[in-house]
Protein backbone atom coordinates (compact mmCIF):
# COMPACT_ATOMS: atom_id res chain seq x y z
CA UNK A 1 0.00 0.00 0.00
CA UNK A 2 1.19 3.47 -0.81
CA UNK A 3 2.35 5.42 2.25
CA UNK A 4 0.07 8.26 3.34
CA UNK A 5 2.98 10.67 3.22
CA UNK A 6 6.09 10.22 1.17
CA UNK A 7 8.75 12.83 0.56
CA UNK A 8 11.90 12.24 -1.41
CA UNK A 9 14.95 14.46 -1.46
CA UNK A 10 13.32 17.69 -0.34
CA UNK A 11 15.62 20.67 -0.67
CA UNK A 12 14.67 24.22 0.23
CA UNK A 13 16.93 27.24 0.35
CA UNK A 14 16.11 30.72 1.58
CA UNK A 15 18.83 32.90 0.14
CA UNK A 16 22.06 31.64 1.65
CA UNK A 17 20.31 29.52 4.23
CA UNK A 18 19.61 25.92 3.38
CA UNK A 19 16.55 24.97 5.39
CA UNK A 20 16.24 21.47 3.97
CA UNK A 21 19.09 19.60 2.36
CA UNK A 22 17.63 16.42 0.94
CA UNK A 23 15.04 15.24 3.42
CA UNK A 24 13.24 11.92 2.92
CA UNK A 25 10.14 11.04 4.92
CA UNK A 26 7.75 8.11 4.78
CA UNK A 27 4.64 7.73 6.88
CA UNK A 28 2.61 4.54 6.40
CA UNK A 29 -1.14 4.96 6.55
CA UNK A 30 -2.59 5.06 10.04
CA UNK A 31 0.71 5.68 11.78
CA UNK A 32 2.32 8.62 13.51
CA UNK A 33 5.66 10.02 12.48
CA UNK A 34 7.35 12.29 14.95
CA UNK A 35 9.72 14.73 13.32
CA UNK A 36 12.05 15.73 16.05
CA UNK A 37 14.55 18.52 15.98
CA UNK A 38 15.57 21.80 17.56
CA UNK A 39 14.45 25.21 16.36
CA UNK A 40 15.78 25.90 12.90
CA UNK A 41 16.24 22.23 12.05
CA UNK A 42 13.81 22.49 9.12
CA UNK A 43 10.69 20.99 10.64
CA UNK A 44 8.30 23.79 9.73
CA UNK A 45 9.78 24.08 6.26
CA UNK A 46 9.14 20.38 5.68
CA UNK A 47 5.55 20.68 6.89
CA UNK A 48 5.02 23.78 4.75
CA UNK A 49 6.12 21.91 1.64
CA UNK A 50 3.99 18.86 2.40
CA UNK A 51 0.93 21.03 3.05
CA UNK A 52 1.43 22.96 -0.23
CA UNK A 53 2.30 26.25 1.43
CA UNK A 54 5.80 26.27 0.03
CA UNK A 55 7.42 24.96 -3.13
CA UNK A 56 10.58 22.91 -2.67
CA UNK A 57 13.65 23.77 -4.74
CA UNK A 58 14.23 20.08 -5.33
CA UNK A 59 12.55 16.82 -4.49
CA UNK A 60 9.05 15.45 -4.69
CA UNK A 61 6.28 14.51 -2.32
CA UNK A 62 3.00 12.64 -2.32
CA UNK A 63 0.38 13.10 0.36
CA UNK A 64 -2.73 10.92 0.59
CA UNK A 65 -1.95 9.53 -2.84
CA UNK A 66 -1.69 12.92 -4.53
CA UNK A 67 1.40 14.62 -5.91
CA UNK A 68 1.97 17.77 -3.88
CA UNK A 69 3.59 19.67 -6.74
CA UNK A 70 1.28 18.52 -9.50
CA UNK A 71 -2.07 18.90 -7.75
CA UNK A 72 -1.80 21.03 -4.62
CA UNK A 73 -5.53 21.83 -4.63
CA UNK A 74 -6.42 18.14 -4.33
CA UNK A 75 -3.88 17.69 -1.52
CA UNK A 76 -5.53 20.52 0.41
CA UNK A 77 -8.85 18.67 0.25
CA UNK A 78 -7.27 15.68 1.99
CA UNK A 79 -5.21 17.24 4.75
CA UNK A 80 -5.62 19.17 7.95
CA UNK A 81 -2.93 21.49 9.26
CA UNK A 82 -2.54 22.89 12.71
CA UNK A 83 0.37 25.23 12.93
CA UNK A 84 2.91 26.22 15.45
CA UNK A 85 1.22 29.56 15.92
CA UNK A 86 -2.40 29.00 16.71
CA UNK A 87 -3.91 30.25 13.48
CA UNK A 88 -7.40 30.99 14.62
CA UNK A 89 -9.04 34.36 14.34
CA UNK A 90 -8.92 36.14 17.68
CA UNK A 91 -11.91 38.34 17.09
CA UNK A 92 -14.24 35.59 15.96
CA UNK A 93 -15.75 33.14 18.41
CA UNK A 94 -14.71 29.52 18.51
CA UNK A 95 -17.88 28.52 16.71
CA UNK A 96 -17.44 31.17 14.01
CA UNK A 97 -13.87 30.05 13.38
CA UNK A 98 -14.85 26.43 12.86
CA UNK A 99 -17.93 27.25 10.84
CA UNK A 100 -15.87 29.45 8.55
CA UNK A 101 -13.28 26.73 8.04
CA UNK A 102 -16.06 24.25 7.28
CA UNK A 103 -17.49 26.59 4.66
CA UNK A 104 -14.06 26.98 3.11
CA UNK A 105 -13.70 23.18 2.96
CA UNK A 106 -17.00 23.41 1.05
CA UNK A 107 -18.95 21.26 3.45
CA UNK A 108 -22.05 23.34 2.86
CA UNK A 109 -23.78 25.58 5.34
CA UNK A 110 -25.65 22.91 7.32
CA UNK A 111 -22.79 20.47 7.54
CA UNK A 112 -20.32 23.22 8.46
CA UNK A 113 -22.56 24.24 11.36
CA UNK A 114 -23.07 20.71 12.52
CA UNK A 115 -19.38 19.91 12.30
CA UNK A 116 -18.44 23.07 14.23
CA UNK A 117 -20.75 22.07 17.06
CA UNK A 118 -19.53 18.47 17.08
CA UNK A 119 -15.92 19.56 17.35
CA UNK A 120 -16.58 22.18 20.02
CA UNK A 121 -18.27 19.47 22.03
CA UNK A 122 -15.50 16.97 21.49
CA UNK A 123 -12.77 19.46 22.40
CA UNK A 124 -14.59 20.63 25.47
CA UNK A 125 -15.13 24.13 24.12
CA UNK A 126 -18.90 24.24 24.10
CA UNK A 127 -19.00 26.61 27.06
CA UNK A 128 -16.75 29.06 25.24
CA UNK A 129 -18.25 28.46 21.80
CA UNK A 130 -19.72 31.92 21.41
CA UNK A 131 -16.98 33.86 23.10
CA UNK A 132 -14.28 35.72 21.23
CA UNK A 133 -11.11 33.62 20.98
CA UNK A 134 -9.25 36.58 22.45
CA UNK A 135 -10.42 35.46 25.88
CA UNK A 136 -9.32 31.82 25.45
CA UNK A 137 -6.41 30.33 27.35
CA UNK A 138 -3.40 29.04 25.43
CA UNK A 139 -4.63 25.47 25.77
CA UNK A 140 -8.12 26.34 24.54
CA UNK A 141 -6.66 28.09 21.51
CA UNK A 142 -4.59 25.08 20.61
CA UNK A 143 -7.57 22.82 20.97
CA UNK A 144 -9.57 25.11 18.71
CA UNK A 145 -6.72 25.22 16.22
CA UNK A 146 -6.53 21.45 16.22
CA UNK A 147 -10.30 21.28 15.83
CA UNK A 148 -9.90 23.53 12.80
CA UNK A 149 -7.58 21.00 11.23
CA UNK A 150 -10.17 18.27 11.78
CA UNK A 151 -13.20 20.03 10.34
CA UNK A 152 -13.16 18.05 7.12
CA UNK A 153 -12.12 14.84 8.90
CA UNK A 154 -9.03 14.61 6.70
CA UNK A 155 -7.23 11.27 6.40
CA UNK A 156 -3.83 12.95 6.83
CA UNK A 157 -3.05 15.41 9.54
CA UNK A 158 -0.05 17.69 10.04
CA UNK A 159 0.59 19.11 13.47
CA UNK A 160 3.47 21.53 13.60
CA UNK A 161 4.66 21.76 17.18
CA UNK A 162 1.15 21.39 18.57
CA UNK A 163 2.13 21.86 22.18
CA UNK A 164 4.93 24.41 22.00
CA UNK A 165 4.41 27.00 24.68
CA UNK A 166 1.68 25.13 26.51
CA UNK A 167 1.70 24.44 30.21
CA UNK A 168 2.19 20.77 31.19
CA UNK A 169 -1.47 20.25 32.00
CA UNK A 170 -2.71 21.53 28.63
CA UNK A 171 -0.02 19.50 26.94
CA UNK A 172 -1.23 16.29 28.52
CA UNK A 173 -4.81 17.13 27.49
CA UNK A 174 -3.71 17.68 23.93
CA UNK A 175 -1.72 14.43 23.88
CA UNK A 176 -4.82 12.61 25.00
CA UNK A 177 -6.80 14.11 22.12
CA UNK A 178 -4.09 13.33 19.59
CA UNK A 179 -3.80 9.72 20.75
CA UNK A 180 -7.53 9.32 20.37
CA UNK A 181 -7.39 10.64 16.81
CA UNK A 182 -4.71 8.20 15.90
CA UNK A 183 -6.63 5.22 17.20
CA UNK A 184 -9.37 6.24 14.79
CA UNK A 185 -7.00 5.70 11.88
CA UNK A 186 -5.76 9.19 11.04
CA UNK A 187 -2.25 9.36 9.66
CA UNK A 188 -0.30 11.96 11.52
CA UNK A 189 2.92 13.82 10.97
CA UNK A 190 3.87 15.63 14.10
CA UNK A 191 6.80 17.94 14.57
CA UNK A 192 8.11 18.62 17.99
CA UNK A 193 11.15 19.73 19.83
CA UNK A 194 10.09 17.79 22.89
CA UNK A 195 11.63 14.38 23.02
CA UNK A 196 9.07 13.25 25.51
CA UNK A 197 6.30 14.19 23.10
CA UNK A 198 7.69 12.13 20.25
CA UNK A 199 8.25 9.27 22.66
CA UNK A 200 4.61 9.39 23.78
CA UNK A 201 2.85 9.92 20.49
CA UNK A 202 4.93 8.68 17.60
CA UNK A 203 5.24 5.19 16.13
CA UNK A 204 8.34 6.23 14.26
CA UNK A 205 10.68 9.10 14.85
CA UNK A 206 12.87 10.99 12.44
CA UNK A 207 15.49 13.14 14.07
CA UNK A 208 16.43 16.07 11.89
CA UNK A 209 19.13 18.63 12.28
CA UNK A 210 20.27 21.26 9.79
CA UNK A 211 17.66 20.18 7.27
CA UNK A 212 18.48 16.54 7.02
CA UNK A 213 17.52 13.33 8.82
CA UNK A 214 20.27 12.18 11.10
CA UNK A 215 18.49 9.17 12.55
CA UNK A 216 15.22 7.35 12.19
CA UNK A 217 13.46 4.46 13.83
CA UNK A 218 11.16 3.71 16.71
CA UNK A 219 11.82 5.28 20.04
CA UNK A 220 13.28 1.98 21.26
CA UNK A 221 15.50 1.60 18.22
CA UNK A 222 16.88 5.07 18.67
CA UNK A 223 17.57 4.40 22.30
CA UNK A 224 19.28 1.15 21.42
CA UNK A 225 21.41 3.02 18.89
CA UNK A 226 22.78 5.16 21.65
CA UNK A 227 23.53 2.30 23.94
CA UNK A 228 21.54 0.02 26.15
CA UNK A 229 20.54 0.18 29.72
CA UNK A 230 22.59 1.37 32.60
CA UNK A 231 22.45 0.83 36.31
CA UNK A 232 22.64 4.10 38.12
CA UNK A 233 23.76 3.70 41.72
CA UNK A 234 24.56 6.18 44.46
CA UNK A 235 26.84 4.86 47.17
CA UNK A 236 26.28 5.72 50.79
CA UNK A 237 30.01 6.25 51.20
CA UNK A 238 31.87 7.64 48.17
CA UNK A 239 35.11 6.09 49.36
CA UNK A 240 33.61 2.70 48.49
CA UNK A 241 33.73 3.62 44.80
CA UNK A 242 36.75 1.48 43.88
CA UNK A 243 35.35 -1.53 45.72
CA UNK A 244 31.96 -1.09 44.07
CA UNK A 245 33.49 -0.93 40.62
CA UNK A 246 35.44 -4.09 41.34
CA UNK A 247 32.25 -5.85 42.42
CA UNK A 248 30.31 -4.78 39.35
CA UNK A 249 32.90 -5.14 36.59
CA UNK A 250 31.78 -8.69 35.72
CA UNK A 251 28.27 -7.39 34.91
CA UNK A 252 29.30 -4.36 32.86
CA UNK A 253 29.19 -4.48 29.07
CA UNK A 254 31.29 -1.34 28.79
CA UNK A 255 33.23 1.14 30.87
CA UNK A 256 31.78 2.03 34.23
CA UNK A 257 31.48 5.77 34.75
CA UNK A 258 31.95 6.98 38.27
CA UNK A 259 32.47 9.98 40.49
CA UNK A 260 30.14 12.50 38.91
CA UNK A 261 28.95 13.40 41.47
CA UNK A 262 31.07 11.60 44.04
CA UNK A 263 29.63 8.21 44.93
CA UNK A 264 27.64 7.93 41.72
CA UNK A 265 28.14 4.99 39.38
CA UNK A 266 26.82 4.40 35.87
CA UNK A 267 27.19 0.79 34.80
CA UNK A 268 26.32 -0.18 31.24
CA UNK A 269 24.55 -3.54 31.28
CA UNK A 270 22.46 -5.79 29.17
CA UNK A 271 19.74 -7.94 30.65
CA UNK A 272 17.50 -5.61 32.59
CA UNK A 273 16.11 -6.24 36.02
CA UNK A 274 17.79 -9.64 36.48
CA UNK A 275 21.18 -7.98 36.17
CA UNK A 276 20.11 -5.28 38.58
CA UNK A 277 19.22 -7.94 41.16
CA UNK A 278 22.57 -9.58 40.60
CA UNK A 279 24.31 -6.25 41.04
CA UNK A 280 22.51 -5.61 44.31
CA UNK A 281 23.56 -9.03 45.61
CA UNK A 282 27.19 -8.40 44.70
CA UNK A 283 27.26 -5.00 46.37
CA UNK A 284 25.59 -6.43 49.43
CA UNK A 285 28.15 -9.26 49.58
CA UNK A 286 30.94 -6.68 49.39
CA UNK A 287 29.32 -4.78 52.26
CA UNK A 288 28.75 -1.64 50.23
CA UNK A 289 25.74 0.45 51.27
CA UNK A 290 23.54 2.21 48.69
CA UNK A 291 21.62 5.43 49.01
CA UNK A 292 19.83 4.96 45.70
CA UNK A 293 19.84 2.57 42.80
CA UNK A 294 17.88 2.17 39.59
CA UNK A 295 17.79 0.86 36.08
CA UNK A 296 18.10 3.68 33.59
CA UNK A 297 17.21 3.52 29.93
CA UNK A 298 18.54 6.35 27.80
CA UNK A 299 16.09 9.14 27.08
CA UNK A 300 15.62 10.66 23.67
CA UNK A 301 17.52 13.60 25.03
CA UNK A 302 20.54 11.33 25.33
CA UNK A 303 19.86 10.16 21.78
CA UNK A 304 19.91 13.69 20.54
CA UNK A 305 23.05 14.59 22.38
CA UNK A 306 24.91 11.65 20.96
CA UNK A 307 23.59 12.09 17.42
CA UNK A 308 24.08 15.81 17.09
CA UNK A 309 26.71 16.63 19.64
CA UNK A 310 24.42 19.14 21.25
CA UNK A 311 21.37 18.93 23.41
CA UNK A 312 17.96 19.17 21.79
CA UNK A 313 16.89 22.11 23.87
CA UNK A 314 20.07 24.06 23.32
CA UNK A 315 18.63 26.24 20.60
CA UNK A 316 15.26 26.55 22.20
CA UNK A 317 16.51 28.41 25.20
CA UNK A 318 16.54 27.11 28.73
CA UNK A 319 13.00 25.88 28.32
CA UNK A 320 11.98 22.78 30.07
CA UNK A 321 8.69 21.31 29.07
CA UNK A 322 6.62 24.21 30.23
CA UNK A 323 8.79 26.98 28.93
CA UNK A 324 8.13 26.45 25.27
CA UNK A 325 10.22 27.62 22.41
CA UNK A 326 11.28 31.11 21.62
CA UNK A 327 8.89 32.63 19.12
CA UNK A 328 11.52 33.42 16.52
CA UNK A 329 11.69 30.08 14.88
CA UNK A 330 14.26 30.87 12.26
CA UNK A 331 13.31 27.92 10.16
CA UNK A 332 9.80 29.21 9.55
CA UNK A 333 9.50 29.90 5.89
Amino acid at each position, binding site marked *: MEPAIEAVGLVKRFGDVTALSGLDLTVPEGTVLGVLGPNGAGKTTAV*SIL*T*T*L*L*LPDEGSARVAGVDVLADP*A*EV*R*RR*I*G*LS*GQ*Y*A*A*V*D*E*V*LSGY*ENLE*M*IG*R*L*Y*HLGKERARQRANELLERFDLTQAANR*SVKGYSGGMRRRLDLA*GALVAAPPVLFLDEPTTGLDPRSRLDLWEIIRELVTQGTTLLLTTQYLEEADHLADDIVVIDHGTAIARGTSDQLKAQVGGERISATLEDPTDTAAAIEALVPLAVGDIESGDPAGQLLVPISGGAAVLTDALRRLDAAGIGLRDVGLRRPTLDDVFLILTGHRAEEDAGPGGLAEGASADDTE*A*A
Partner: protein
Amino acid sequence: MSSVAQALADTAVVAKRNVIKIRRVPEVLTFVLISPIMFVLLFGYVFGNAIEVAGSSYREFLIAGIFAQTVMFGATFTGVGIAEDMEKGIINRFRSLPMAGSAVLAGRTASDVIYNVLSVAVMAITGLIVGWRIRGSFLDAVVAFGLILLFAYAVSWVMAYIALIVPSVEVINNASFMVIFPLSFIANTFVPVEDLPGPLQTFAEWNPVSTVTQAARELFGNIPPGAPQPDAWPLQNPVIYSLLWIVAAVAVFSTLAVRRYQRVTKN
Protein backbone atom coordinates in the same frame (compact mmCIF):
# COMPACT_ATOMS: atom_id res chain seq x y z
CA MET B 1 -20.48 24.28 -8.47
CA SER B 2 -18.38 25.96 -11.12
CA SER B 3 -15.04 27.28 -10.03
CA VAL B 4 -16.16 30.88 -10.46
CA ALA B 5 -19.24 30.32 -8.31
CA GLN B 6 -17.05 28.52 -5.80
CA ALA B 7 -14.60 31.42 -5.71
CA LEU B 8 -17.47 33.85 -5.15
CA ALA B 9 -18.86 31.70 -2.35
CA ASP B 10 -15.43 31.54 -0.70
CA THR B 11 -15.06 35.29 -1.10
CA ALA B 12 -18.41 35.79 0.61
CA VAL B 13 -17.29 33.61 3.55
CA VAL B 14 -14.11 35.63 3.98
CA ALA B 15 -15.94 38.93 3.58
CA LYS B 16 -18.46 37.85 6.20
CA ARG B 17 -15.65 37.14 8.60
CA ASN B 18 -14.20 40.61 8.01
CA VAL B 19 -17.58 42.22 8.54
CA ILE B 20 -17.93 40.43 11.88
CA LYS B 21 -14.57 41.90 12.79
CA ILE B 22 -15.69 45.41 11.85
CA ARG B 23 -18.59 45.04 14.24
CA ARG B 24 -16.52 43.54 17.06
CA VAL B 25 -13.65 45.99 16.94
CA PRO B 26 -15.45 49.33 16.93
CA GLU B 27 -12.20 51.22 17.60
CA VAL B 28 -11.16 50.70 13.99
CA LEU B 29 -14.50 51.91 12.73
CA THR B 30 -14.32 54.96 14.94
CA PHE B 31 -10.98 55.87 13.46
CA VAL B 32 -12.26 55.21 9.97
CA LEU B 33 -15.07 57.66 10.58
CA ILE B 34 -13.17 60.32 12.48
CA SER B 35 -10.27 60.76 10.10
CA PRO B 36 -12.47 61.80 7.13
CA ILE B 37 -14.15 64.41 9.33
CA MET B 38 -10.73 65.63 10.33
CA PHE B 39 -9.54 65.77 6.74
CA VAL B 40 -12.56 67.74 5.58
CA LEU B 41 -12.27 70.24 8.42
CA LEU B 42 -8.49 70.48 8.30
CA PHE B 43 -8.06 70.93 4.58
CA GLY B 44 -11.34 72.79 4.19
CA TYR B 45 -10.43 75.45 6.73
CA VAL B 46 -6.63 75.57 6.53
CA PHE B 47 -6.49 75.74 2.76
CA GLY B 48 -10.05 76.78 2.10
CA ASN B 49 -9.62 80.11 3.84
CA ALA B 50 -6.19 80.80 2.48
CA ILE B 51 -7.01 81.06 -1.18
CA GLU B 52 -9.64 83.11 -2.89
CA VAL B 53 -11.25 81.69 -5.99
CA ALA B 54 -13.22 84.18 -8.00
CA GLY B 55 -16.95 83.56 -8.11
CA SER B 56 -16.83 80.43 -5.98
CA SER B 57 -15.97 79.09 -2.61
CA TYR B 58 -12.52 77.46 -2.60
CA ARG B 59 -13.69 75.18 0.16
CA GLU B 60 -16.44 73.88 -2.06
CA PHE B 61 -13.89 73.41 -4.83
CA LEU B 62 -11.65 71.42 -2.46
CA ILE B 63 -14.20 68.91 -1.19
CA ALA B 64 -14.15 66.53 -4.17
CA GLY B 65 -10.37 66.34 -3.93
CA ILE B 66 -10.55 65.65 -0.22
CA PHE B 67 -12.98 62.80 -0.94
CA ALA B 68 -10.62 61.24 -3.46
CA GLN B 69 -7.60 61.69 -1.21
CA THR B 70 -9.30 60.37 1.92
CA VAL B 71 -10.63 57.18 0.38
CA MET B 72 -7.11 56.51 -0.82
CA PHE B 73 -5.79 56.88 2.72
CA GLY B 74 -8.64 54.64 3.85
CA ALA B 75 -7.46 51.92 1.48
CA THR B 76 -4.44 51.38 3.71
CA PHE B 77 -6.84 49.46 5.95
CA THR B 78 -6.93 46.77 3.30
CA GLY B 79 -3.18 46.43 3.51
CA VAL B 80 -3.12 46.49 7.29
CA GLY B 81 -5.82 43.80 7.45
CA ILE B 82 -3.93 41.49 5.12
CA ALA B 83 -0.58 42.10 6.79
CA GLU B 84 -2.16 41.32 10.16
CA ASP B 85 -3.67 38.10 8.88
CA MET B 86 -0.27 37.08 7.61
CA GLU B 87 1.43 37.94 10.87
CA LYS B 88 -1.08 35.93 12.87
CA GLY B 89 -0.76 32.87 10.66
CA ILE B 90 -4.36 32.98 9.46
CA ILE B 91 -3.21 33.35 5.88
CA ASN B 92 -1.33 30.06 6.29
CA ARG B 93 -4.48 28.45 7.57
CA PHE B 94 -6.44 29.77 4.58
CA ARG B 95 -3.74 28.64 2.20
CA SER B 96 -3.89 25.10 3.55
CA LEU B 97 -7.63 24.93 2.80
CA PRO B 98 -9.10 23.85 -0.53
CA MET B 99 -10.55 27.31 -1.09
CA ALA B 100 -10.12 29.63 -4.07
CA GLY B 101 -6.75 31.36 -4.03
CA SER B 102 -8.33 34.71 -4.81
CA ALA B 103 -10.97 34.58 -2.09
CA VAL B 104 -8.94 35.87 0.84
CA LEU B 105 -7.93 39.00 -1.04
CA ALA B 106 -11.20 39.49 -2.85
CA GLY B 107 -13.07 39.04 0.43
CA ARG B 108 -10.89 41.66 2.06
CA THR B 109 -11.23 44.27 -0.68
CA ALA B 110 -14.97 43.60 -0.80
CA SER B 111 -15.52 44.03 2.93
CA ASP B 112 -13.42 47.20 2.92
CA VAL B 113 -16.00 48.75 0.61
CA ILE B 114 -18.08 49.11 3.77
CA TYR B 115 -15.40 51.33 5.31
CA ASN B 116 -15.27 53.37 2.14
CA VAL B 117 -19.02 53.86 1.94
CA LEU B 118 -19.16 54.97 5.57
CA SER B 119 -16.17 57.21 5.13
CA VAL B 120 -17.62 58.91 2.06
CA ALA B 121 -20.98 59.32 3.78
CA VAL B 122 -19.35 60.94 6.79
CA MET B 123 -17.31 63.24 4.58
CA ALA B 124 -20.35 64.26 2.56
CA ILE B 125 -22.27 65.16 5.70
CA THR B 126 -19.33 67.05 7.14
CA GLY B 127 -18.89 68.81 3.80
CA LEU B 128 -22.52 69.85 3.70
CA ILE B 129 -22.18 71.26 7.21
CA VAL B 130 -19.20 73.40 6.28
CA GLY B 131 -20.85 74.81 3.19
CA TRP B 132 -20.22 72.37 0.36
CA ARG B 133 -23.20 71.96 -1.97
CA ILE B 134 -24.12 69.53 -4.72
CA ARG B 135 -25.12 71.81 -7.57
CA GLY B 136 -25.47 69.18 -10.29
CA SER B 137 -28.27 66.68 -10.80
CA PHE B 138 -29.02 63.85 -8.39
CA LEU B 139 -27.95 61.28 -10.96
CA ASP B 140 -24.66 63.06 -11.58
CA ALA B 141 -24.00 63.07 -7.83
CA VAL B 142 -24.69 59.33 -7.68
CA VAL B 143 -22.21 58.79 -10.51
CA ALA B 144 -19.64 60.94 -8.68
CA PHE B 145 -19.96 58.97 -5.45
CA GLY B 146 -19.89 55.72 -7.41
CA LEU B 147 -16.69 56.75 -9.13
CA ILE B 148 -15.04 57.69 -5.83
CA LEU B 149 -15.99 54.32 -4.36
CA LEU B 150 -14.74 52.41 -7.39
CA PHE B 151 -11.50 54.35 -7.16
CA ALA B 152 -11.20 53.38 -3.49
CA TYR B 153 -11.81 49.74 -4.43
CA ALA B 154 -9.03 49.84 -7.00
CA VAL B 155 -6.59 51.40 -4.52
CA SER B 156 -7.52 48.64 -2.05
CA TRP B 157 -6.12 46.11 -4.54
CA VAL B 158 -2.91 48.13 -4.84
CA MET B 159 -2.61 48.09 -1.04
CA ALA B 160 -3.38 44.36 -0.93
CA TYR B 161 -0.43 43.74 -3.20
CA ILE B 162 1.83 46.01 -1.16
CA ALA B 163 0.81 44.17 2.02
CA LEU B 164 1.89 40.87 0.48
CA ILE B 165 5.34 42.11 -0.50
CA VAL B 166 6.26 43.93 2.71
CA PRO B 167 7.60 41.81 5.53
CA SER B 168 5.45 43.01 8.44
CA VAL B 169 2.57 45.08 9.73
CA GLU B 170 5.02 47.69 11.03
CA VAL B 171 6.17 48.72 7.58
CA ILE B 172 2.86 48.54 5.77
CA ASN B 173 1.87 52.10 6.64
CA ASN B 174 5.18 53.57 5.52
CA ALA B 175 5.12 51.52 2.37
CA SER B 176 1.56 52.62 1.56
CA PHE B 177 2.39 56.26 2.16
CA MET B 178 5.15 56.05 -0.41
CA VAL B 179 2.39 55.35 -2.91
CA ILE B 180 -0.27 57.60 -1.43
CA PHE B 181 1.63 60.82 -0.87
CA PRO B 182 2.83 61.43 -4.42
CA LEU B 183 -0.58 60.46 -5.76
CA SER B 184 -2.47 62.73 -3.40
CA PHE B 185 -0.23 65.80 -3.55
CA ILE B 186 0.99 65.81 -7.15
CA ALA B 187 -2.58 66.32 -8.19
CA ASN B 188 -5.20 68.99 -8.70
CA THR B 189 -6.56 68.44 -5.20
CA PHE B 190 -5.30 71.72 -3.77
CA VAL B 191 -3.56 73.55 -6.58
CA PRO B 192 -4.28 73.91 -10.28
CA VAL B 193 -2.14 71.46 -12.27
CA GLU B 194 -1.08 74.31 -14.58
CA ASP B 195 0.97 75.77 -11.72
CA LEU B 196 3.13 72.65 -11.36
CA PRO B 197 6.56 72.40 -13.04
CA GLY B 198 6.82 70.30 -16.26
CA PRO B 199 7.17 66.63 -15.30
CA LEU B 200 5.05 67.06 -12.19
CA GLN B 201 2.35 68.66 -14.30
CA THR B 202 2.27 65.66 -16.62
CA PHE B 203 2.17 63.31 -13.64
CA ALA B 204 -0.67 65.31 -12.13
CA GLU B 205 -2.63 65.29 -15.38
CA TRP B 206 -2.50 61.51 -15.67
CA ASN B 207 -2.83 60.91 -11.93
CA PRO B 208 -6.13 59.13 -11.20
CA VAL B 209 -6.56 61.25 -8.07
CA SER B 210 -6.70 64.30 -10.33
CA THR B 211 -9.13 62.77 -12.76
CA VAL B 212 -11.43 61.35 -10.09
CA THR B 213 -11.37 64.77 -8.41
CA GLN B 214 -12.03 66.54 -11.70
CA ALA B 215 -14.87 64.16 -12.53
CA ALA B 216 -16.46 64.59 -9.12
CA ARG B 217 -16.13 68.37 -9.28
CA GLU B 218 -17.83 68.44 -12.63
CA LEU B 219 -20.57 66.03 -11.59
CA PHE B 220 -21.20 67.86 -8.30
CA GLY B 221 -21.24 71.16 -10.20
CA ASN B 222 -18.36 72.49 -8.13
CA ILE B 223 -16.31 73.93 -10.99
CA PRO B 224 -16.53 77.72 -10.86
CA PRO B 225 -17.99 79.25 -14.00
CA GLY B 226 -15.25 80.64 -16.19
CA ALA B 227 -12.60 78.29 -14.83
CA PRO B 228 -10.07 77.45 -17.54
CA GLN B 229 -10.59 74.24 -19.51
CA PRO B 230 -7.90 71.65 -18.78
CA ASP B 231 -5.48 70.87 -21.61
CA ALA B 232 -4.76 67.19 -20.94
CA TRP B 233 -6.98 64.45 -22.31
CA PRO B 234 -7.44 62.65 -18.96
CA LEU B 235 -8.70 65.83 -17.35
CA GLN B 236 -10.90 66.63 -20.32
CA ASN B 237 -12.49 63.17 -20.11
CA PRO B 238 -12.14 62.51 -16.41
CA VAL B 239 -14.96 59.96 -16.03
CA ILE B 240 -13.79 57.79 -18.90
CA TYR B 241 -10.13 58.03 -17.95
CA SER B 242 -10.88 57.30 -14.29
CA LEU B 243 -12.92 54.24 -15.19
CA LEU B 244 -10.18 52.98 -17.48
CA TRP B 245 -7.60 53.48 -14.75
CA ILE B 246 -9.81 51.69 -12.21
CA VAL B 247 -10.38 48.69 -14.47
CA ALA B 248 -6.70 48.48 -15.33
CA ALA B 249 -5.58 48.82 -11.71
CA VAL B 250 -7.98 46.14 -10.48
CA ALA B 251 -6.97 43.79 -13.29
CA VAL B 252 -3.23 44.27 -12.82
CA PHE B 253 -3.05 44.40 -9.05
CA SER B 254 -5.55 41.63 -8.39
CA THR B 255 -3.54 39.37 -10.70
CA LEU B 256 -0.26 40.32 -9.07
CA ALA B 257 -1.66 40.05 -5.57
CA VAL B 258 -3.32 36.66 -6.09
CA ARG B 259 -0.17 35.27 -7.67
CA ARG B 260 1.87 36.58 -4.79
CA TYR B 261 -0.63 35.25 -2.23
CA GLN B 262 -0.25 31.74 -3.57
CA ARG B 263 3.49 31.79 -2.90
CA VAL B 264 3.72 33.83 0.26
CA THR B 265 4.17 32.25 3.65
CA LYS B 266 4.58 33.77 6.99
CA ASN B 267 8.14 34.77 7.72
